[in-house]
């Protein structure tokens, strides 16, 4: 597996709050839209790999107790 360069993703979560309207409000809205797009892309990719018969798989996944 080749070494991949890291895509820089914006950190999520509150490190500081922007409030208000005008320019800062627009920035916030744009950031919100970007995040939503990101989320959608993530969900799409999960959809592609998620086990199809989830219910049956989860039901049949039984382990013996270990340490």
């Amino acid at each position, binding site marked *: *597996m*080749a*070494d*991949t360069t*890291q*895509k*820089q*993703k914006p*950190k*999520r*979560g*509150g*490190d500081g709050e922007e409030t208000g309207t005008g320019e800062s409000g627009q920035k916030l809205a744009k950031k919100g839209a970007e995040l939503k797009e990101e*989320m*959608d892309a*993530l*969900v799409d*990719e*999960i959809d592609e*790999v*998620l*086990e199809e018969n*989830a*219910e049956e*798989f*989860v039901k*049949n*996944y*039984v*382990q*013996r*107790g*270990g*340490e």
Partner: protein
Amino acid sequence: MSIPKVMGTEIEYGITVRNDRDFDPIASCVLLVNAYREEHAGRILWDYDQENPLADARGFQVDGEKYTPNQQENIARNKTLVNGARFYVDHAHPEYSCPEVTNVRDLVIHEKAGERVIEMARHEASALLPPGAQLLIYKNNSDRKGNSYGSHENYLVDRRTSFKQIVEHMMSFLVTRQVYCGAGKVGSENRAQPCEYQITQRADFFETEVALDTMVKRPIINTRDEPHADREKYRRLHVIVGDSNMSEYTIYLRNGATALVLSMIEDGAIKKDLSLRDPVRAIKEISHDPSCRREIAMESGKKLTAVQIQREFLELALQYASSHTLDDVTKDVLAKWQHVLEQLERDPMGLTREIDWVAKKALIESFMERKGLDWESPQVQMLDLQYHDSRADKGLYAMLERQGRMERIVTDAEIITAVTEPPHDTRAYFRGECLKRYPAQVFGVNWDSISFGIGDEPIKRVLMGEPLKGSKAHVEDLLAASPTAADLVKNLRA
């Protein structure tokens, strides 16, 4: 005086086969372990002779039957690898014990190398199954039906530090570190209070404070006293309370902070009483509260959150750092520990790039929101499991990492190298090199010894009771002067 924190992890994996009615976990484990081929993979035994898992650190020996497989079973179930690791069948789970390392950065490299070994073995083994059947492996700790399997950490501790002291100071540390170590779980198990999502995989399974057993009535602090090293000098603290982690950052902090606190205990630097009123209750209360705001009753009468308790340990560590020389890796661990606690105090969900339980929760919540699902949905339960899938193209952690959504600590190149290269600064080097150079003459292996069968001579066991002896610096000349195992034994005697 604190001694170097030589450490390692032993991880049991979940195993299942899809589309095979006759699936037997033990047979599948044996298939898996044997599917991983190394040049020397011949007929080498795991040397159980000196093992003593019934010795209790509180100073007694428990009656019981030690499990020792016969030779055939032994060889089928145990592989010692050229990187110094042990890859074997433990009851009904495949288990990978990484080689001994001196620092937590190497620990991350070798634990991750173990994941690669497991996945390579899985891929090979799966091809040997009946058509349509598929072998699958999960690096997690439960099947959601009340069965749990463990991720154990091992730390070398100075024997002069009393076990009583270790218990006293480690209890609240181990109960509360889950806020940055937990791997996350949908729902609850083992008759615990119902919940939608909790911080750990394992908290529900811990029922006692201090005990010897590892499989039933699990204790927060395990008293197994089997140092696999010079008993007069060393103790091996066997920590069973953690989760199996996927995130490199989480693994790094988990072992890094724990090792640092142990050094502080050895140096008498934990000067505060941070005991909890009821650790067994607390471990579940904290786990069931992803907001990390729940206050826990202290023995002193105060009430603190898990993050606040960890803060106390961090403050003591910062003081310790000002009066002791820490190596660069430990300084980095300290900085990250501080960063994570600060963020947990503001909003745990700000740590999606660093901490497993947060990354998993964010991933599941995004999916739930888009698809209109709730915490009971089978797909949500499947996401919980698939986060830990060993396949690079199906594992959800693997997906997050590939997309650059997770902080890395080490590189892929380092991990790949560690699949066949032992650490250079512990006895794992000697073990790995002997397996590379003299595969046909190695008779048996254990952590603290290696035995050679040379011609018709009696088996010669070489003792390795010092974890730091057997490093490259220590033995490279010896190995260079020993083209055969017979030469090695002769040179060791000289």
